[in-house]
C-alpha cells in the first residue's frame, strides 16, 4: 500500500429520501492514488455520494472503507480527509495563512512547523507571499487555490473535491483542470472529484464513474466511456452525439430500411440507437467501402472557430427524418468550399466508428 494514499471501498450504499433514491446500492472500488471522477447531471446523486465519503450525509445502510478501516460510523472530523468545497468555504475572518494553518493548528502542530507547512502548501498552489492577505482581497482563482492549500496542508491520504472549478470562468477553469491534474500526480493522494462537466471529467480523470438517478451507469477510463458508452444516456451525456434508431435482426442492422454495417453489437437483436459523433462523421463525395452513408439536406451551418458545425437532416421515407451533426475541422483557409445551406449532401461514418447502444 502506498504511504501517501488509501484505497476506498464503497459497498451497497443506499440513501432514500421519502420515495426517492438519492443512492441505490452503490458499490465502487477506488484505487489507492487514483483520480476518480463522479460524473452525472444535477440531482444524480454524485454529490450525495461524496458527502457520504466525507461523513456529512449518513446513508440508510452501506459500508465505506478507507484502506481496511470501516469509516461509515465515524464523524467527519475523525476521517482525516481533505476536502475542497464548491464555494471554497474559506473562513472569512482569517487571513490566508490562518486558513491554511487551521487544520495544522487543530492537530496541535507547533508554530514553526505550521509556518513551514503553510509555506509549502502555498507554494504548491503557487500562492507564495500572499499569506498575510485577507480572503476578501483575493480573486476567485486565488480563493480556489487557498481552499486547495488548506485541504492538502496536513497531507491527507484522501482528497475530496465537490465541483471546485464551477465558479471560475472558462479559461481559468481549463487552466486549473490541468494544474489540479498535475498536482494530483505530484502529491499522489487518492482523489475523488465530483463534476457535471463531462469535458472536465475526460480531461482530469484516471477513471470516471457515471452516475444517474442514484445508480452507477458506467465505470471506466475516459477513453472507454467516450468510445464505448454503455447506453444512450451516456452516449448523449458524454460528448456530442446524434442518436439514430436502428433495428437489428438476424445479425443485420437497418436504418430506415437500409442496411448498415456495424463494428459491434450486431449479435444482439431488437431496437437500438446508432451513435454518430459529429467529429467522426464526414462529408463524402463518393461512396467507398468500409463506411456507412446517409444522404440528407444541409439545414444549418455554424462557424465555431476551430470547426464548422453542419446540421444535416437525413431524408427518410417514412417520417420527418433525423438530424445528424457533422463537425468539419477548420484545417486550412484553403480547404475546399463547404456546401451551402439547402444543398443535398452525403455523410459517411466508418464501419469501425459505427456502434449501437440500447
Amino acid at each position: 500500500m502506498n504511504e501517501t494514499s488509501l484505497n476506498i471501498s464503497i459497498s451497497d450504499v443506499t440513501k432514500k429520501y421519502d420515495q426517492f433514491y438519492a443512492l441505490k446500492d452503490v458499490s465502487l472500488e477506488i484505487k489507492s492514488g487514483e483520480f476518480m471522477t463522479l460524473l452525472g447531471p444535477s440531482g444524480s446523486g454524485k454529490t450525495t455520494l461524496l458527502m457520504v465519503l466525507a461523513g456529512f450525509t449518513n446513508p440508510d445502510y452501506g459500508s465505506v472503507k478507507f484502506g481496511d478501516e470501516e469509516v461509515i460510523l465515524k464523524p467527519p472530523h475523525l476521517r482525516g480527509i481533505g476536502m475542497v468545497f464548491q464555494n471554497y468555504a474559506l473562513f472569512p475572518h482569517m487571513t490566508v495563512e490562518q486558513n491554511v494553518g487551521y487544520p495544522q493548528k487543530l492537530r496541535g502542530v507547533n508554530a514553526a512547523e505550521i509556518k513551514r507547512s503553510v509555506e509549502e502548501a502555498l507554494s504548491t498552489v503557487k500562492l507564495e507571499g500572499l499569506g498575510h492577505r485577507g480572503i476578501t482581497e483575493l480573486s476567485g482563482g486565488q480563493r480556489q487555490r487557498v481552499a486547495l492549500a488548506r485541504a492538502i496542508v496536513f497531507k491527507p491520504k484522501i482528497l475530496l473535491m465537490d465541483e471546485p472549478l464551477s465558479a471560475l470562468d472558462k479559461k481559468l477553469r481549463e487552466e486549473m483542470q490541468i494544474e489540479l491534474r498535475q498536482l494530483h500526480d505530484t502529491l499522489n493522494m487518492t482523489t475523488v472529484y465530483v463534476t457535471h462537466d463531462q469535458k472536465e471529467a475526460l480531461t482530469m480523470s484516471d477513471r470516471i464513474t457515471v452516475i444517474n438517478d442514484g445508480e452507477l451507469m458506467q465505470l471506466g477510463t475516459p477513453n472507454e466511456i467516450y468510445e464505448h458508452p454503455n447506453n444512450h444516456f451516456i452516449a448523449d451525456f458524454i460528448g456530442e452525439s446524434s442518436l439514430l434508431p436502428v433495428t437489428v435482426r438476424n445479425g443485420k442492422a437497418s436504418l430506415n430500411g437500409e442496411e448498415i454495417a456495424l463494428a459491434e453489437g450486431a449479435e444482439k437483436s431488437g431496437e437500438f440507437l446508432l451513435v454518430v459523433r459529429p467529429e467522426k462523421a464526414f462529408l463524402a463525395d463518393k461512396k467507398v467501402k468500409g463506411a456507412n452513408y446517409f444522404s440528407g439536406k444541409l439545414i444549418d451551418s455554424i462557424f465555431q472557430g476551430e470547426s464548422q458545425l453542419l446540421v444535416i437532416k437525413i431524408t427518410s421515407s417514412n417520417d420527418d427524418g433525423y438530424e445528424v451533426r457533422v463537425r468539419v475541422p477548420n484545417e486550412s483557409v484553403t480547404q475546399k468550399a463547404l456546401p451551402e445551406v439547402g444543398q443535398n449532401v452525403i455523410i459517411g461514418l466508418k464501419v469501425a466508428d459505427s456502434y449501437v447502444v440500447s
Partner: protein
Amino acid sequence: MTIADMEKPNERGLQQVAANERLTFFGLTLPYLLMVTALIVVPVGWLFYLSFIGRDGSFSFENYERMIKSKAYIRIFLTTFKISILTTIICAAIGYPLAYFMSQLSRKWANICMIGVLIPFWTSLLVRTYAWLVLLQKKGLLNNMAIEMGIISEPIKLVHNTTGTLIGMVHIMLPFLILPLYANMRAIDKDTLKAASSLGATPTRAFWTVFFPLSLPGLLAGLLIVFVLCLGFYVTPAILGGGKVIMAAMKISSNIELYFSWGAASALGVVLLVVTGIILFIASKLVSMDQLGNR
C-alpha cells in the same frame, strides 16, 4: 447642431438625465430631512439650551453641577447602567442560543419560531408590562403556584424591585437582540462549518473558531441596540420597579412633573444623549472593524 455636439454625441442630454436623477433622489429624501429637522435637530437644540438655564432663568451650569455633586443623581446613573448592562447580558445569554438554534433550522421552521419571537414584539408594551405585574406580584400566578406546589412557603418578592424590572425588561428587549443576530447567523455559509469539521475540528471547536467569530457583528449590533434602548427605558422599569428602581428616564419625568424643573430634566437628557452617542461611536468602530474581515 454645434460642432461640440457632433464630437461628443448626446453629452448635454446625458448630463440632463444625470441631473434629473439627482433631483429625484433629493425629492425622495426631502420629507425625511424635514422631519428630522423638525423633530430631532430643533428639539435637541432646544434641550441643550434649556439645560443651561438655571432656576432664576439666567444662563448657568447649575443643572450640570447638581448632577456631579448630588449623591442621588450619581446613584440614578449607576442604577441605569447596572440595569442596562444586566438586561443586555441576560438578553445575550437567552437570545444567542435561541438565534443559533433558529439559524440551524430549515427556513420553514425558522419562520415559525420567528413568529413566536415577533408576536410579543407586536403586543403593546404597556399590556406586556402589566401582564408581568399580574404574574409576578405577591398574590400573583407564579407565587400562588409555587406555594401550592410546596416549593416555597412564603411568597417571594418578584416585583417592585430589581428582579421584576429585569424580568420585564429582558422580555421586552429580547427581540431587539435576536433579530439582527439571527439575520447575521443565517448569512454565515454553512459550508464553513463543514470545512472546519472535515479539517479535523470537533463540533465544539468548529463553533468557537468559526461560527462564533463570524456571528460577532450580529451579536454586537444586537447588544448595542438593547443597551442603548435600556438606557432611556421608562415604562417598564417605572411600573415593575414600583418606584424603588429609579433610572434616568424616570428622574427626567419626575423633574418635570413634580418639580417643574425643565433645566434639570434637560441636563439629564443631554447627558443621556451624549453617553449614548459615545457608546454608539465606540461600537460602530468595533463592528465595522469586524465586518471588514467578514466579507
